[in-house]
């Protein structure tokens, strides 16, 4: 990820690594997946990275966010960051300016408000995202109905932003978790570090001031949100895979059997070398996608899908190999590697499985692509 901001990114990475060092399941004996202190994230400026300075943020872009996301992946961080920051802040930023929006951005940056965004995720097909909710107008009354599954970080959010179709046009609707007719069903997944839920709206009445249009093309806005989600997951997988490689290299150097470090055996050496090759490729794919997304390139979905498909699947292999090379201790709770493998497995299927992304990429060559 070479850019003019290289030094800034290095500094951000260095600070994040230092602050997060003791939060990895590898160092906390894997017993609890305690969420990171939200106020600490706020005071570090990490909640408002992309929020404009006028609303109390840092006015940075996705490239900076990507640095943090990779660091969060390294420590398998338990924090509602994906829902509230990666998607929430971005969703609001993509809307036409209004006071309600600006006020919310300010609160998000300060850490006094948390939101979740309900995008289509439970049928992990990719393409132009179809809004999982729809608006019904009966006279002056506005109602929203629909269902989205596996929505990140809904539980504990002060507000949920629903991607809804208003007469076929994608819009965002803000609803309170307690709104009558809104149901939130937690969906337990193998990954203990994150929380997903199904959001079901059955004729939830909405305030006309909570229905917002995207700036510019609503389809492009909705697609951009989806791409951010996919790439955020790829950054996470890159970070966790890198951590798995480092932990493995350290272990196989220390662990002796037959009077020599197990890392001196070719079967182990080759596996570590393969991890490094895999991570190098992933890192290039993520870098290219981050650049395309942050500079708003048309067709950015192509590098994003490539990164999501490849990185999320390689990370599962690397985490699996890491556990294998740790032998019995690899799957103990105390060692914490299992948290990484499960997180990698969830990343693989969240926001489009590798199959779905590859199919979409392949369709370009058949002349029926999405771009």
């Amino acid at each position: 990820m070479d850019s003019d901001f290289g030094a800034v990114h290095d500094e951000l990475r260095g600070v994040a690594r230092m602050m997060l060092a003791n939060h990895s399941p590898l160092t906390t004996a894997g017993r609890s997946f305690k969420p990171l202190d939200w106020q600490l994230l706020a005071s570090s400026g990490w909640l408002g990275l992309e929020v404009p300075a006028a609303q109390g943020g840092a006015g940075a872009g996705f490239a900076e966010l990507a640095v943090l996301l990779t660091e969060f992946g390294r420590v398998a961080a338990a924090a509602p960051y994906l829902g509230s920051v990666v998607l929430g802040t971005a969703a609001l930023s993509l809307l036409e300016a209004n006071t309600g929006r600006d006020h919310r951005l300010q609160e998000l940056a300060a850490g006094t408000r948390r939101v979740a965004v309900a995008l289509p995720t439970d049928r992990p097909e990719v393409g132009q995202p179809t809004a999982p909710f729809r608006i019904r107008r009966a006279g002056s009354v506005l109602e929203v109905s629909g269902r989205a599954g596996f929505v990140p970080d809904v539980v504990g959010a002060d507000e949920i932003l629903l991607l809804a179709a208003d007469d076929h046009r994608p819009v965002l609707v803000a609803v309170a978790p307690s709104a009558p007719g809104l149901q939130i069903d937690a969906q337990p997944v193998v990954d203990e570090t994150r929380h997903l839920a199904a959001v079901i709206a059955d004729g939830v009445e909405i305030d006309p001031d909570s229905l917002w249009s995207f700036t510019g093309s609503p389809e492009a806005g909705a697609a951009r949100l989806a791409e951010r989600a996919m790439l955020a997951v790829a950054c996470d997988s890159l970070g966790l895979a890198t951590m798995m490689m480092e932990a493995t290299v350290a272990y196989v150097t220390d662990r002796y059997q037959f009077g020599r470090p197990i890392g001196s055996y070719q079967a182990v050496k080759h596996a570590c070398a393969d991890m490094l090759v895999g991570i190098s490729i992933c890192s290039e794919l993520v870098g290219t996608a981050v650049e395309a997304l942050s500079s708003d390139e048309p067709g950015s979905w192509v590098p994003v899908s490539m990164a999501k498909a490849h990185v999320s699947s390689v990370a599962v292999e690397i985490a699996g190999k890491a556990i294998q090379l740790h032998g019995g201790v690899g799957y103990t709770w105390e060692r914490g590697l299992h948290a990484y493998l499960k997180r990698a497995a969830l990343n693989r299927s969240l926001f489009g499985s590798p199959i779905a992304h590859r199919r979409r990429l392949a369709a370009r060559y058949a002349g029926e692509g999405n771009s």
Partner: protein
Amino acid sequence: MDFEMGVEVEALRRELRDLVAHHVPSDYLGAFTDDPADLEMAQGFCRLLADRGLLCPAWPGEWGGRDASPWEQAAVREEMWAHHEPRGAQYMGVNWVGPTIMRHGTREQQGLHLPPIARGEVIWCQGFSEPNAGSDLASLQTMARRDGDGWRVSGQKIWTSYATMAQWCFLLARTSREERKQQGLTIFLLPMAAAGIDVRPIATMIGPHHLNEVFFDGVWVTDADVLGAVGDGWRVVQEVLSFERVGIARYARCERLLIWAPAALGAEWDDLPEDLHGRWARMVMHARRARLLAYRVVDLQSRGQVRPGDAAAYRIAVTRLDQESAQVLMDIIGFAALGEGEGLRFRRAVEDHWRYSISATVASGSIEMQRILLARALMAAS
């Protein structure tokens, strides 16, 4: 490709499936959960099998079996593992502890241990691995020192499955220091109720109550508890490990879950991406290949011709199948809702299979060691 094993085996298989259908709850995923009722169910199911002569049919009649063919025993292994092992920990006693005692035990040891195993009343654990003796098992340090007319055992074992519930431990300990580390090892049949034993559970991702550390602090055992000759433990253990490595019919659970997928997904099955259907079909075939390798080992074993490489080849195939099929099944459930009823049961079974499969290429000999073993056998033969 279907495997005809003869009418007796097919009748036995039907009987076992019938028992599972009637006595094992449909959401059962193994005995070692946080719900004690699961273990109780498994204990009861063992007694039920024993009453019908189905716990160890291949054992000789004098030890509670009915001299059935090794194929009937294979059918028992398959049906039980396919249905998340409703015998709980008993498969160890039936598959290898019992047969090893038949082969190497004294009349007294046989009389003491075989009937309770055959009746499904006893749980055994295996005290082999130590923190610094995993792949390099022969370097183990747990010592049994001569003390009067018996022995005092001190040391530590690790990764001991079911140690919290076991009544007996099949323990490998060092009784003397010899030139080669494989020498001077002895097997003890040690009662877990003896003074000086401390069992500490190890929490793992494969499920609660599976693995433990076991500490021995001057535990007293007598000469009557020594299996085989003092100092001859390594040879017996090699035999045990080859039994153990074919002991679990992992392919049977893989195959059952794979075959269940279309029914569990219902209409959603047809909506799966075509390449996922392809990967699924490949896994079904992989499962049947692994089954053939298992049958080959059973056949060789029944003729006393099994070599270490044969068991290793089967194990490499079946443990990889375990992990690869788990991955394909996880991909399949990622595409489907499976929120209730049979669909939800399927989702839970697949997630359990995935978690458990992680240990397949490490437990009872890592896949790396299996490959070395196989390559060694291959090169020695050339």
